[in-house]
Structure formats: structure tokens, C-alpha cells
């Protein structure tokens, strides 16, 4: 594990740390010691302890915010902070009152060599207890003397193409100090620290909280590079409605959390969740951290902030891939071809010099962005990259500037304005002439026929979807289907982008009429997709499948299908998928397999969709036809 060299210093100008004076509290402490007798001092501190008890400060919600106290399952109080060095009392992690008494005795007696690691607590206690001035160390941290943010933003890099798993995404906070360029803001980031490179170990340990999570501070441009240039994720920046004294309070809490770890849990106590504490620390009385179920999806934290009225404005920062697509949409087919030829070395950059300036600039800027994109995607080695990029830039530098070189990139709908993350559906299904009710709960997130997303986002991410069939008469309630996880990522290919599409899933299913009971299904595969514009998105994939269950000969069946599909819109607020697949199972229970169908959703309102499905399926010598309709409610 790498020890994070966390340091708040970067927040300010490096110059600020020039003068390492004797810490003020120590200085005051010395005065205190020599100022009046130890016994008298102790009495005054004890008076404050009593006063705090009378005021019931240990029950104050802000005290609980500063310590990340919560009540797991409504039981006893406990802090989410796992680092023992954060607490002043040995029982402080579970006892806010003992911790407060210990904190008052320790901090007001001036025993702390440096007050900064306790500055948020001390500042608040001092404010609440309002002791006679001069008796106790002032609640001032010298390190923060010149760090006064003027604004704060929650930054949300959205999911990125070809990695639907990034729906869990990330959020971070940026603080603006005396700078004006967004790039120079400071990013405050909470993340797990590890050098683990084995994905399985990483996933396992991350889920069970084996990694320590730390806050750290770094220049925001590092994060722009990471998300915008390397991961190709569009970024949303939400400016928070916080005043300067509130931002100072946030900085004090950040300072307290310096080098302090909390066990990091991917699903709930994650980056987005923990960031809420910074906002709560900024403005007393907010209650943001109680608003979540068992998992915290970053976009939901944005919704919580919005609901609390904390978001002033949102700004959109398109990723490099988004910019390239936008540039391409402003090039004629002929110019696209020229750009591709220059990119792949069949033409020289100089070719554009004869053209009209705006046209030349638009072609060359596209080439330049594509070179950067291909390099971070490892389609080019570094020598080749340096040579190609520099050559294009040399020519570009002779073309001057043009007002409309890059027309404004249209903003997509803000992610928090789309439908809620989880979905409850009720409807009817007719299979082989028998009618049954269906009830489906899907904790997250979206599928291929979601009309809220553009066609170019061929993305299906289903987590924990449970589908119950009620009836037909006499059959009671049955588990129709359970998708622990089911992902399909369709990324359209064109001359400039050549991504793979892929799918993966694991779950249970029981097909009515088959009488095979519940089967475990593991599936995956890869293929290609094309289009994504007005004619819809089409794809072709090879999908291996494995089934297991007592209803099958030999208990399992292994095979696969090839599948072709087309995703399209009939009208604006609807999205449809037609598909056909065929193949067979060659191992275990052998048979051919085929299916075809049509499914779709119509948007009725922000959180209401109407879904349709009809499909025919044949396998293991049986066929099933079903058709259904359901009302979806997102929340």
C-alpha cells in the first residue's frame, strides 16, 4: 500500500509555507503555563466540559458530521472514520460524548502541539462555548491562514463509452482560490489507496472494505487529464451555493481529514458518499448522508445536492472523444476522408495549406485531436505520436485562429435530470395463451431501449433485477428471472473509432412452459456495432452461454448464439430494439437455439416509462412465445 503523502499545502501558494514559525497554539500554551497556575487552568477547562454537557453539544448534529458519526442499522453510534489517530478519546469512535469531553480537555488546555489536525472541532467548540477571550488558544490554524476558497464545485465525470461499469463513476470536489482558470482549481478527491493490480483481488477487497480511503488534494488539471483525455468521460461541474465562511469551514474539515483513513467500501462508503461530509461540514444543519440506500451511485449524490438547493449552475466539459465526434459532424465526408488520410500518413498535413483557412483549421484540428485520442488508446507508440503530432502542430501553427473553429459542443441533458436510478415495474405477460401479472424491481440502471439516452449510447446496465411472475391461475408467485448483473455495451464503429462491443451477465431464469425449474445462466461475448445516428444503432455479436440446473440433461448446457440487433426510434420519446439470434448448445444438454423479438419503451414523463416486449424463443426442443407490457416507475 502506498502511504499517501497527503498535504493541504498544495491548496495554497507554495510560497505560503516559507515561514515555519513556532505554532501559535504552542506559543499560547507556553503563555498559559506561565500565565496562571495549572490547577486554576484545569478548573476553567472543567467548567467548559460541564458547560458543553449542559448544552448537550455532544448530541449536536454538527459534532456528528465532523466525526462522521452514524447509527448503523439504527443501533449504537459509531464513526465511519476508522483511523484511531483521529480520535482523542480511546472510546471516541463509538462515544461522541466521551470524545467531546476528551477533546475539550485536550484542546482547551493547549496540550495539542499543533492545533491544525483538530481545527474544525476546536473551531466549532470554541464558537459554541464562547469562552472568555485570551484564556485559551485561539481557534486558528496557521497553515490555513491564506486558504480561503471563493467557490466550490462538485465534479462528476459521467460514465464513458465502452465501459458501462463506470456507472458507479466518481465525484470529487474542486475549490477555487485566487485563480480564475478552471484548470488551476484544486481538486479534493477521496479514494481508496492501493497498488493492487489484480482486478479480482481489487474488487473483492474493495467491496469488503479492505482498503483505506483517504482524502487528497491535487491540481484539477490532473483530473481533467485522467477523465477527459484518458478515460473519455464527459465531465459535469456543479457549482455549489456556499458562502466564503462556509467554504472556510469545509477547508477546516479537509485539514482534519488529512492523512486520516476510513475503510473504503465501493458500494456505499465510497468517494461520492464521503464527499457529502465536506458539504455537511461547510453548512451546519444539512443532512445529506442519511439519504442513501445500501449503495451510493454518484449521480444520486448530485440529486441529493440539487434537492437541498445547493447547486447553482452546471457546466459541461466534453471529453476528447466527444469533441472529436463533434468536429467530425462539421466536416464533409470528403474532408473526413482527408483527415483520416493525414492521420494515417497517406497524406501530408501540408495538404491543407492551400485551402480556405476555416476549412483547413477544422480538418487539421480534427486530425490533432484524433492523434491524441489514438495515443492514449495505445494505438500509437510514443515516438510515432511525438513525430505525427508535432508535424500536424507545425502546420497548424501557420493557420492562425478562426472564430468558429470549434462550434459549441451541444450539451446533453444533465445526468441528474434523467430518470431515477432504480425502477419498479408492474404489468401483464401472455405466454402461450396464459396470462400472468409481472412485477419487476431493478435497483440500477438502464437498458438498450431507454429513450432518455441517445442511440449512440448502446448501453445496458442491469444490476440485481428481480422479476416475479404472478399467476397464471393456480401457479402462484414464481421467480421469473433474476439478473445479478447484465451488461451490454455497444459502441458504434466508424472510420475514426474502432471499439469492440461486449456483453457479460450472470443470473437465474425459469422459462414458463419449459418445466426445467430455475437455471443458472452465465453469458458474455463480443462483437461490433455501427451507426448510432438517425438510422439507429445496429450490432452483430457472438455470445457464448452456459446454463446449469437440474432440469437439464447432465445438469448443464454449454453453447452460444450469434445475435443481430437494431435499436431505433419510432418517434422522439420512444426507443425500440428488434433482434434475432441463432446457435446451439454442443456440450451437456445439446440442442439448437433461436430467438427473435421486439421490445421498446415509451417515455410518459421523467420517471414514468411504458415498456413493451414480444419474443419467440426455441431451445432444448421446446418453444415459448410471450408478449407483455409494463409500466415502469423510476425513483
Amino acid at each position, binding site marked *: 500500500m502506498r502511504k*499517501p*503523502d497527503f498535504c493541504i*499545502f*498544495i*491548496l495554497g501558494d*507554495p*510560497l505560503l*509555507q516559507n515561514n515555519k514559525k513556532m505554532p501559535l497554539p504552542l506559543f499560547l500554551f507556553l503563555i498559559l503555563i506561565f500565565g496562571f497556575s495549572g490547577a486554576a487552568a484545569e478548573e476553567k477547562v472543567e467548567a467548559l466540559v460541564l458547560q458543553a454537557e449542559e448544552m448537550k453539544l455532544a448530541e449536536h448534529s454538527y459534532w456528528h458530521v465532523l466525526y462522521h458519526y452514524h447509527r448503523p442499522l439504527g443501533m449504537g453510534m459509531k464513526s465511519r472514520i476508522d483511523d484511531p489517530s483521529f480520535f482523542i478519546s480511546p472510546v471516541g469512535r463509538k462515544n461522541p460524548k466521551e470524545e467531546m469531553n476528551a477533546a475539550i480537555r485536550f484542546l482547551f488546555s493547549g496540550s495539542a502541539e499543533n492545533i491544525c489536525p483538530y481545527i474544525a472541532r476546536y473551531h466549532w467548540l470554541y464558537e459554541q462555548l464562547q469562552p472568555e477571550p485570551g484564556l485559551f488558544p485561539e481557534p486558528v490554524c496557521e497553515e490555513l491562514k491564506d486558504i480561503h476558497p471563493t467557490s466550490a464545485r462538485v465534479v462528476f465525470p459521467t460514465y464513458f463509452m465502452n465501459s458501462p*461499469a*463506470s456507472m458507479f*463513476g*466518481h465525484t470529487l470536489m474542486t475549490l477555487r482560490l485566487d485563480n480564475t482558470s478552471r*484548470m*488551476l482549481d484544486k481538486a479534493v478527491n477521496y*479514494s*481508496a*489507496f*492501493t*497498488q493492487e*493490480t489484480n*482486478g*479480482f483481488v*481489487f*474488487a*473483492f477487497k*474493495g*467491496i*469488503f472494505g479492505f482498503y483505506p480511503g483517504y482524502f487528497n488534494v*491535487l491540481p484539477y*488539471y490532473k483530473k481533467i*487529464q485522467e477523465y477527459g*483525455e*484518458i478515460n473519455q468521460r464527459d465531465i459535469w461541474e456543479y457549482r455549489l451555493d456556499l458562502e466564503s465562511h462556509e467554504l472556510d469551514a469545509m477547508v477546516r474539515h479537509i485539514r482534519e481529514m488529512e492523512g486520516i483513513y476510513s475503510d*473504503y467500501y*465501493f*458500494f456505499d462508503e*465510497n*468517494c461520492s458518499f464521503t464527499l457529502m461530509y465536506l458539504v455537511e461540514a461547510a453548512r451546519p444543519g444539512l443532512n445529506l448522508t442519511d439519504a442513501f440506500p445500501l449503495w451510493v451511485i*454518484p449521480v444520486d449524490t448530485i440529486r441529493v445536492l440539487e434537492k437541498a438547493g445547493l447547486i447553482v449552475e452546471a457546466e459541461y466539459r466534453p471529453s476528447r472523444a466527444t469533441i472529436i465526434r463533434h468536429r467530425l459532424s462539421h466536416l464533409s465526408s470528403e474532408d473526413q476522408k482527408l483527415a483520416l488520410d493525414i492521420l494515417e500518413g497517406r497524406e501530408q498535413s501540408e495538404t491543407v495549406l492551400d485551402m480556405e483557412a476555416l476549412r483547413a483549421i477544422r480538418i487539421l*484540428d480534427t486530425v*490533432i485531436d484524433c492523434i491524441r485520442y489514438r495515443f*492514449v488508446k*495505445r494505438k500509437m507508440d*510514443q515516438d510515432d*505520436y*511525438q*513525430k505525427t*503530432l*508535432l508535424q500536424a*502542430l507545425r502546420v*497548424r*501553427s501557420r493557420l492562425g485562429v478562426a472564430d468558429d473553429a470549434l462550434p459549441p459542443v451541444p450539451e446533453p441533458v444533465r445526468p441528474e435530470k434523467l430518470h431515477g436510478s432504480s425502477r419498479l415495474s408492474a404489468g401483464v405477460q401472455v405466454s402461450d395463451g396464459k396470462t400472468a401479472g409481472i412485477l419487476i424491481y431493478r435497483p440500477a440502471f438502464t437498458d438498450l431501449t431507454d429513450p432518455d439516452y441517445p442511440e449512440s449510447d448502446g448501453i445496458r446496465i442491469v*444490476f*440485481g433485477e428481480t422479476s416475479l411472475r404472478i399467476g397464471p391461475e393456480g401457479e402462484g408467485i414464481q421467480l421469473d428471472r433474476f439478473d*445479478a448483473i447484465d451488461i451490454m455495451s455497444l459502441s458504434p464503429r466508424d472510420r475514426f473509432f474502432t471499439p469492440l462491443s*461486449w456483453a457479460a*451477465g450472470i443470473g437465474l431464469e425459469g422459462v414458463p412452459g419449459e418445466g426445467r425449474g430455475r437455471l443458472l445462466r*452465465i453469458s*458474455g461475448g*463480443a462483437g461490433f456495432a455501427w451507426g448510432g445516428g438517425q438510422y439507429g444503432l445496429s450490432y452483430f455479436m457472438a455470445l457464448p452461454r452456459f446454463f446449469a440446473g437440474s432440469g437439464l440433461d447432465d445438469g448443464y448446457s454449454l453453447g452460444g448464439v450469434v445475435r443481430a440487433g437494431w435499436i431505433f426510434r419510432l418517434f422522439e420519446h420512444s426507443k425500440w430494439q428488434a433482434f434475432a439470434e441463432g446457435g446451439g448448445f454442443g456440450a451437456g444438454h445439446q440442442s439448437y437455439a433461436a430467438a427473435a423479438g421486439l421490445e421498446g419503451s415509451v417515455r410518459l414523463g421523467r420517471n414514468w416509462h411504458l415498456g413493451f416486449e414480444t419474443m419467440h424463443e426455441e431451445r432444448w426442443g421446446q418453444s415459448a412465445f410471450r408478449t407483455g407490457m409494463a409500466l415502469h416507475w423510476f425513483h
Partner: protein
Amino acid sequence: MKKFFAAVLIGLFVAAPAFAVNRDNVGCGLGSMLLEEKDGLLWEIMATSTNGTSGNQTFGITSGTLGCEKPANFAKREQLDRFVADNMDSLAVDIAMGEGETLGALAELAEVDESRRVDFFVALQMNFDTIYPNGKVAGTQVVDQITDILAQI
């Protein structure tokens, strides 16, 4: 609940195609910033799918204290050096294009008045070949050239 998710996630990665993890040796110059933090696709997907972040976070933290012992007039240079080294690629592109966010941030760090910025950007664009004689140019050389150009406008 967490166990459930564990099973889910492990299931996903059993079923998912295997991705190779590789680590390139990184030289210097253009491109090195963008390369050094990549550890292969599997890692990338893991890190992004789970809110986790690989141990690439320490940059800038310790270097934030650089310059502590130096006289004030070096501080600006120090900041510029760091910024240019960290943003080599996007700065080169912005200079060639004559505009851009990185160029704006550079002008702010170099304390160029708003009124002089257009001239500054034009001068940089015209001198692109001098600033970037080859792809291996170091950040400090770039800053030297930029400072010279700034002195002449």
C-alpha cells in the same frame, strides 16, 4: 448485501473477456504525462467501475511544498515549470492552435495582463517551431522559450 455484490462482481469478471495488463516504459517529452498512469484495460475498468482509483494520486501533493525554501521570484518560475511539465501535450496543441484553456491558465500563471494575452498567444503560435524543436523537448526548455517570447512582446 455486500456479499451479494461481491458474488455479482466476481461473476462479472469471470464472464467478461480477459484483458491483458501491461505497463509500458515511458520516456520523456510529449506523451509521457498521458502514459504514465495507464496500467492496462482491466485495471482501468476496475478502477472506474468501482470508484476506486489506482495509486496515482500522490502527484502534486509533495511537490506542493517545493519552492518553500526559495526566494519569491523563483516561485513563479517553479509554478510555471510544474504546470508546463504536467500539461505538455495540451499546451503544445493550444499554442499551435493559438487559443485554448491550457493557454489561458499558462497566461494566468505567467501573470500576463488580459490586455496583452492576444498578442502573447499570437507570438507563441508564430514561434511554435522554436518552442517545440522536437518531441523530446523538456518542460523547462519550453518555459525558457515562453519566457523569452513574453519578454519581447
